[in-house]
């Protein structure tokens, strides 16, 4: 491994992110300029009295939408157009989804409800840390991908209703 190349990857990543983000901005501006009609006006942000809000804003139903495919939809798709609901569960919670089928393809999957409990019941040997912090509460757990199983179940359940007879 070339030691002269130390500490490059973080800098490279920052450059990559900036390049992609600003290319995206430029594309959006071009698209907006091409549209007839009023420009989007931003309502003046009325700041509340200085209370750093302790209340996280509620995440609206998450849209995991796929861009419509450029290819023509096959007329013999297994799915009938419409919107279908499904629910999946894992031992850590449940997820309900709403799946939209258009022209035989999945065009949108929205999470309509999600309940999860963070796995904080046991802390495996944390020398010094637990004593110092006296707390097992965490905001997030990294490496935990348990919720995707429930999501997959929910989508499959919705799709099973969409299958043409």
């Amino acid at each position, binding site marked *: 491994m070339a030691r002269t190349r130390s500490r490059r990857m973080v800098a490279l990543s920052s450059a990559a992110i900036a390049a992609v983000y600003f290319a995206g901005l430029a594309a959006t501006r071009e698209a907006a300029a091409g549209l007839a009609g009023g420009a989007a006006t931003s309502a003046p942000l009325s700041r509340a009295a200085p209370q750093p809000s302790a209340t996280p804003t509620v995440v609206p139903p998450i849209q995991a939408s796929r861009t419509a495919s450029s290819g023509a939809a096959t007329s013999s798709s297994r799915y009938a157009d419409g919107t279908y609901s499904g629910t999946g569960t894992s031992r850590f919670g449940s997820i309900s989804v709403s799946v939209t089928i258009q022209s035989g393809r999945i065009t949108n999957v929205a999470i309509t409800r999600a309940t999860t409990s963070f796995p904080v019941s046991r*802390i495996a040997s944390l020398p010094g840390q637990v004593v110092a912090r006296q707390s097992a509460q965490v905001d997030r757990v990294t490496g935990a991908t348990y919720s995707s199983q429930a999501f997959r179940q929910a989508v499959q359940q919705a799709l099973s209703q969409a299958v043409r007879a």
Partner: protein
Amino acid sequence: MDTVISIEVVSPQPQDSVHAAIQRALGWFARVERACSRFDPTSEVQQLLRRVGEPVPASPLLFEAARFALTLAARTGGAFDPTVGHVLERKGFNRHYLSGERIRSPIPTDASVSYRDVWLDPKQSTITLRRPLVLDLGAVAKGLAIDLAARELAAFDSFCIEAGGDLYARGRNGSGQPWRIGVRDPRHPEAVAYLLDVSDRAVCTSGDYERRTADDSEHHLVDPRTGRAARALASVTVVAPTALAADGLATAAFVLGPRRGLRLLTEEGVDGVLITSAGAVRTTPGLRRNTR
């Protein structure tokens, strides 16, 4: 992308503007998937396979994701290699998460390819596959999407974006404290093995427990040099200023193993927690000073 995305914003700003920004942030995940998904035959990266041997104009998104992945491959001598995709397909990691359809790229199963078989032209923004190969950007795409989404939320002092166990945390949580992130114990899904307090950092984890073959014999973190799953480590968690770097370096360090992996992270100036298959925890020297 087979992940659930959650975005939490802590802000006194009006809810409307916060929700609008969250929607824009979420939009980046879809864009990244359109460009980089190995499982969608219509994605931009999969289209490269139709034009082997010629320079193909690439979107900034695909180009930068590929450039970062290939640079990391060169940096790690191939321990990390995004051309490992066809090996993953053969092992069964080829199912699209929504449709369940399996993808089968037309590549000879004994093909011996490496990151050196992909050429990038920064001036023309083109990608050339010198040989048929599957470009697997899974190790960097999620991180990149998180960073782009975070960019959309730059107006807010505090937020946390999480996508399937990888995250970026800015500022402080709802209680005014640095975001407290637990590192999942690789062998006990209900337990946390390490605690991190982070602010303005990405935290990404590669673990052997995330995706496994149908017979549970192997996981998806393959050593490109041998074609077999890397075994010495159970998980690597990287803390870095960007999720793109954290995501890629976590995967690379996992393959490199405890000693070389730790060295890679230290040389690159990032922090990390490496948990061996035996359950031992190793950390970079800077981790205890993580609280900002």
